[in-house]
């Protein structure tokens, strides 16, 4: 009788009746063959692997993270309520110790969704990991969280949400942004002035194979996690680094993903991208589930797997080593970098243009952070889209000092008198979400 070494929870929600459009990669068929493989392998019968039915996420859970324009209901479909709810269900099962680890095998994904949401970008509408994490913080008092994003695309949405949060370590390893959507995620992107170093980016060159990914895990991710000492480790488990993925250029494998999972030991993994629905996902997911449960995965392999034919070149190896050195440099000097970034500043401004590729929306943002010596600082975002929507959003962080709380309300009140169509306030310390 097979018995899991680590009791593992699974939320499986393939949304067999939901698609962005009939031939879009994010369509009904996406997890069909994964379901076939997981069912045929009998993984759900294994002693110590337990399937949970996803709950629906609630509006306050979404508002804790996002400013949805014009409203939560207009940017989310039924399926988003379930995929975010699935992540929440698995997180609760882990925190309440019903299981030791959990994997939310859900769609649609979320890691390209930023704090302000005007629509869908990179197939994502809301950030399901962030919704889950902020729920855990609110309901269970979880404090320090590490997110390791192993999707092939830079997790720019998650990076945006945690850019100014020193209690959330966000590490993204992905294909170099010069060669792939969304075109960001360089080593120099290391967080806002009050949170320098808790955002880390490891851009990997195209054709990176198993040894490259595992090198980055062993030489950057694991040592950084050891220093940061998170209460919980989340893996944004995108599966599009696979050698058969149609929209990326990497050479990772099911064996590699399983080994990565064994090394990382995430408390919770959440599925992100991965669009090789026949050649990769069935095998990668079986590998990840077995690895999470602490079971033997050495026989899991794609029909066309040949490690020699996908091995990375020496040049790729050198490039990866150099990137990893740069990232470790940022991490080692984060204190001094942070000091330098904060010195002499009262307010820090950022101007950004954000393109929503899925919904074809262009957004302009003007962000202002109070560079606070006592907390991570209150934040306001002036955002307008080419759909004619203009909003002001104020975020008072979870551990805001009294001065920042006060300023947040002042900004909110002032904006209400201004030209904005909508004004939002997230008061995280009081878990209060206002809008006018």
């Amino acid at each position, binding site marked *: 009788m097979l018995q899991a070494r680590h009791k593992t929870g699974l939320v499986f929600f393939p949304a067999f009746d939901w698609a962005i459009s009939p031939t879009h990669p994010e369509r009904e068929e996406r997890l069909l063959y994964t379901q076939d*493989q997981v069912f045929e392998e009998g993984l759900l019968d294994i002693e110590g692997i337990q399937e949970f039915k996803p709950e629906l996420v609630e509006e306050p859970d979404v508002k804790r993270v996002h400013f949805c324009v014009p409203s939560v209901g207009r940017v989310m479909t039924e399926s988003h309520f379930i995929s975010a709810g699935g992540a929440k269900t698995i997180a609760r099962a882990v925190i309440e110790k019903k299981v030791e680890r959990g994997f939310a095998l859900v769609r649609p994904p979320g890691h390209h969704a930023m704090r302000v949401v005007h629509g869908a970008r990179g197939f994502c509408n809301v950030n399901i990991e962030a919704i889950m994490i902020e729920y855990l913080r609110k309901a269970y008092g979880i404090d320090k969280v590490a997110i390791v994003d192993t999707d092939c695309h830079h997790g720019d949405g998650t990076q945006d949400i945690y850019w100014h949060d020193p209690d959330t370590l966000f590490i993204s390893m992905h294909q170099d942004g010069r060669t792939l959507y969304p075109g960001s995620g360089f080593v120099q992107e290391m967080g806002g002035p009050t949170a320098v170093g808790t955002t880390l980016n490891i851009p990997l060159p195209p054709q990176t194979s198993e040894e490259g990914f595992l090198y980055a895990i062993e030489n950057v991710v694991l040592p950084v996690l050891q220093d940061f000492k998170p209460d919980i480790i989340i893996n944004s488990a995108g599966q599009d680094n696979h050698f058969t993925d149609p929209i990326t250029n990497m050479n990772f494998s099911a064996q590699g993903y399983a080994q990565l999972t064994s090394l990382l030991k995430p408390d919770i993994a959440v599925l992100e991208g991965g669009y090789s629905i026949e050649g990769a996902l069935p095998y990668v997911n079986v590998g990840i589930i077995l690895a999470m449960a602490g079971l033997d995965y050495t026989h899991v392999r794609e029909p066309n797997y040949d490690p020699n034919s996908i091995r990375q070149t020496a040049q790729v190896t050198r490039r990866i080593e150099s990137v990893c050195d740069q990232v470790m440099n940022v991490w080692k000097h984060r204190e001094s970098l942070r000091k330098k970034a904060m010195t002499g500043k009262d307010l820090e401004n950022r101007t950004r243009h954000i393109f929503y590729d899925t919904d074809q929306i262009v957004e302009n943002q003007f962000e202002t952070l109070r560079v606070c010596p006592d907390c991570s600082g209150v934040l306001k975002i002036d955002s307008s889209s080419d759909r004619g929507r203009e909003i002001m959003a104020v975020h008072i962080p979870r551990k805001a000092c009294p001065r920042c709380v006060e300023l947040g309300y002042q900004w909110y009140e002032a904006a209400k008198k201004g030209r904005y169509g909508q004004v939002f306030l997230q008061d995280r310390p009081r878990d209060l979400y206002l809008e006018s």
Partner: protein
Amino acid sequence: MIIGLDVGGTYADAVLLGPEGLINFVKVSTDPSDLFTTVLTGLEKVTQGIDPLQIQRLVLSTTLSTNAIVQKQMPPVGMIVSSGPGVDAGLYRTNDHYCVVGGSVDHRGREIEPVNAGEIRKIAETFKKEGLERVGVVGKFSVRNPSHELKIAEILGDRFEKVFLGHRVSGNLNFPRRIATAFLNAAVYPIHKNFFEAVKKSLEKKGLKVPIHILKADGGTMRFESSMDFPGQTILSGPAASVMGAIAFASPETESLVLDIGGTTTDMAVLLNQVPLLNPLGITLDCHKTLIRSLETHSIGLGGDSAVRVKDGRIVIGPDRMGPAMAYGGSTPTPTDALFVLGKTSNGDREKAVQGIESVAGALGMDPEQTAYRIFDAACTHILSEAREMIRRINSKPVYTVRELWEGTCVKPTEMLILGGPAQCFAEHFREISDYQVRVVPHWGVANAVGAALARTTCEVALLVDTEQGIATAPEEGISERVGRNFSRDDALKKAFELLRKKALEKGADPEALEMEVVEDLQFNMVQGFYTTGKNIRVKVQVQPGLIRGFSQGVKHAASQA
């Protein structure tokens, strides 16, 4: 007239039904070491004085295969398992003669590695030398493409008495369960075959030449001849018999909880508008998780004869049975003895029952009457909480579409139907302590045999169409056909219903009363790049469990008269 016979662990119940209702019933003790005599005695007694020519049908439900499996008294079989990559198939070893061989098929049914004929021949030699007569052959994804199992069977040829192929036992995906199911079918085959052939012969000698049907765990029946290919489907038919016995008396527009309170166990199940809920995967028996279709039933070790003990000042009932109640000559106090003390039952030795309950009362420091009430109440409360837990489990089963999740359909039985020996006594108390509309099933003592007699033939057909590859497969039916690119979902449903009708009639169904329904109906666009290259259509249809025409109305009518 029709006969239903249900062999339980303690008693075998037999009933004779006519269009007007129950004509005769008997209860005989089960002799676990000689079920043949038990069955024949039951049949003989229930048909006494009846002209054999008047009997049209006989349905049997026995614990024969179940016992063989649980007591691990199965003759040896050979297993040939072809896995390919994935979880190590060696971990699913079912028995000594278990060989993992080369060859593999992927999730779309494409061959990845061919069968190695030489390897199979060698294994066949060894099996022969070891004197094995039955062989199970199971491949991963064989329900997507059965060619490897068929190829292996072809190599084995006719050198073995019987070969069981994995893709024929179920259309569902689950390789480890397919292995277990093929194994159990092969293992119980000779036991099943010898037993029923002997029964048939004896009956024929007595002039009883009627079609024999055998009850399955899904509450349906199959013809004796069909059962030779699927003897494993007969395991755990007992709880199904009880559920079928309650159906005729369930309200048509509500959800019902069925309780069969026996001597050793209480079995529970749920009916939705008179249709029993099926278990989506299959039976788990002993250490075997299978793909054998069954009703969703839950069995707990608490019955009228469960042993009552005092542990740490608290009453503990079951899960074991040490023998009959003290009122009937046993030596351990039981809930039945409590019923004697409370004056709810009387046809036994009350003195002995009182003695038993007094021993419990002594340990608790309470008077016997109070103690008897506490025992009885504890039994009822425990059954209710287990029922709640079963319903919670049913409602927390995952679903995989947005529509189903948002609709969030929820089972909430409002009616409780009770059968089994102490049904009446328990019903009274359930009325007091629960919100259920509580009813006792008429002829509660033999309602299980009535259920067996009235059960209709059930079966299921799964059809998978892949228009990109141009193939339609119904693995259990041994069908794999070419289809055109325009083959539609409607075509698939039509085809599946055709196959189902044919299969049901072969298994002995009444052509006029086929309650066929769709249980799964999914269609996916298959896309390569940004172009639709085909459709993946998955339909599953079934004859749902239910009662045969004619006799059930009679039973119901007669009961309402009584």
